């Protein structure tokens, strides 16, 4: 018999953390930009409660002294999303998606696994009302369709609905993401 006393550990996966943080950041900017570019997305955002705070995090987001990637967006009065960043002091989330691990987050964010399949495989948990979840899921799908080529987007969404003036919107979306306007 051997007994060892252990304490806090501080192991990390720097490369995976960086990748997930980068992808979440792009998604945050894309959501904000898409809400400016697409009328349909603005219509969906209108269904969300005012000042609605939405987050996507990787477990353990709240563990002291240990940072995991995250992304937060908030609804503005003009029915648009504002990208808050990767940290927020506000803990009153209206809708929070938490990936169970970094690996699970990377699978979903790199579209190796569709969102539905990932949910079925318990890769993330959702906290929030259905009234928020349903519009946000549609917003996410529409943003992914605008953001990604069809061959990749078709894997990420359940049904691929081609938006009107897709290419024009895509150019505007990328321009806004990279210029931050």
């Amino acid at each position, binding site marked *: *018999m*051997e*007994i*060892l*006393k*252990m*304490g*806090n*550990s*501080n*192991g*990390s*996966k720097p490369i995976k953390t960086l990748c997930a943080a980068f992808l979440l950041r792009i998604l945050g900017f894309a959501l904000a930009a898409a809400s400016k570019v697409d009328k349909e997305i603005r219509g969906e955002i209108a269904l969300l409660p005012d000042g609605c705070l939405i987050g996507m995090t990787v*477990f*353990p987001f709240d*563990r002291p*002294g*240990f940072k*995991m990637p995250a992304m937060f967006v908030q609804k503005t009065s003009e029915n648009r999303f504002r990208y808050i960043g990767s940290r927020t002091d506000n803990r009153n989330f209206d809708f929070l998606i938490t990936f*169970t*691990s*970094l*690996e*699970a987050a990377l699978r979903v964010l790199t579209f190796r696994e569709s969102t539905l399949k990932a949910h079925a*495989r*318990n890769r993330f948990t959702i906290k929030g009302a259905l009234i928020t979840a349903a519009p946000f899921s549609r917003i996410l799908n529409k943003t992914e369709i605008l953001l990604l080529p069809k061959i990749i987007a078709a894997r990420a969404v359940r049904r691929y609905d081609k938006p009107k003036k897709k290419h024009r919107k895509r150019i505007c979306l990328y321009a806004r993401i990279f210029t931050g306007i």
Partner: protein
Amino acid sequence: MDIRPFYSGSKIISGSGALDALSFELASVNAEKPLLIASDIERTAEKTVAKALKATAAVIGGICRLQSGEKNSAKTIAETFNRFGCDSLLAIGDADLINAVKAARVELSFGKAPAEIDFTQPAPPRRSVPFVSVAVLTPEIGPLPNELILDSGACITSPLFYPDTVFIDPRVTGKSAAVSKRSEIAAAASIFAVFALSDTQAHPAVRACAHSALQQVCEAIETRSRAEQTRLIANARFLSQIALTGVRFVPEIALLPFLTDGRNPTETLKTLFEAALPTLSFAKDDLSQIVIKLVPNNNAGSGKQTLRSEFETALLRLTQRLVPNSAAPKPSRSELFKAFEAVKESALTAEQKNECLKILQIQMEGTE
């Protein structure tokens, strides 16, 4: 009305990368400072689990390494748990270790030794001690997840003994100490799956698990990759365990008449299969395909032949181990082949197919 309950009290997380969610699952059962209890021989598995915890900066309260067959291990675990101020149990190891952890959990939760508790009407526990288990490959099928073997040798069955969560990750099962005995484990899993199938009164979920266990064994025999074989056999072992928890008779007791009447192991195995198969009113076509695969094929190619013969030898060893009197005549390979032939012949008369899908369909749509 025919009520057939089925209860498997553990959340099972299996598949490649299952351990990545270990920290998350521990948090979901309010486990913030687990005591890691591991078999002394499962050092590699222990390292993999510790690494998965460290990756998320999770706290490990302490590590308690136990040797196989160590006495008073439940008491040691309980003492270590209290000394380090842990709040949950995380176990990696063989059947003996899991049994000790179950006993320690009962002692910590109820404040009494398991032998002093009436499990038919247990009082509410004093505190909740979450118990998470990481499965390793072990040659023993029992004790089952809902069983606890006391020091006196008595076996208690209660839903209180189920671990809260079980992880089956190929990274751990593939590096278990008993990987070399995988053919023996496959043999045991398939025999016990047939036991579960023979209970016609069991819940349909029992049949689904037992059937799937047999399919996993057959796939393991067909595949050439060792890692894949280990993965499939680990699943088969676990599925047969779940199936057995829903069976109304205890397999060892069912075996007893065969063991005590002085028959040789081949006859035992043959009688066992023959007794089980006629009671199956379903999937005999499907089952026959499985049995055909299990039957040693003397004309098969060399790659598949290796595991087939390994499996055959393992069955031989298992049947010999089940017979308490070692003086019983050892069956030859041809005798064993004949036993399987008999099974195959009796299974070929069936009509129904795809029983597992049918069961799932019933589960989804409901029954009359």
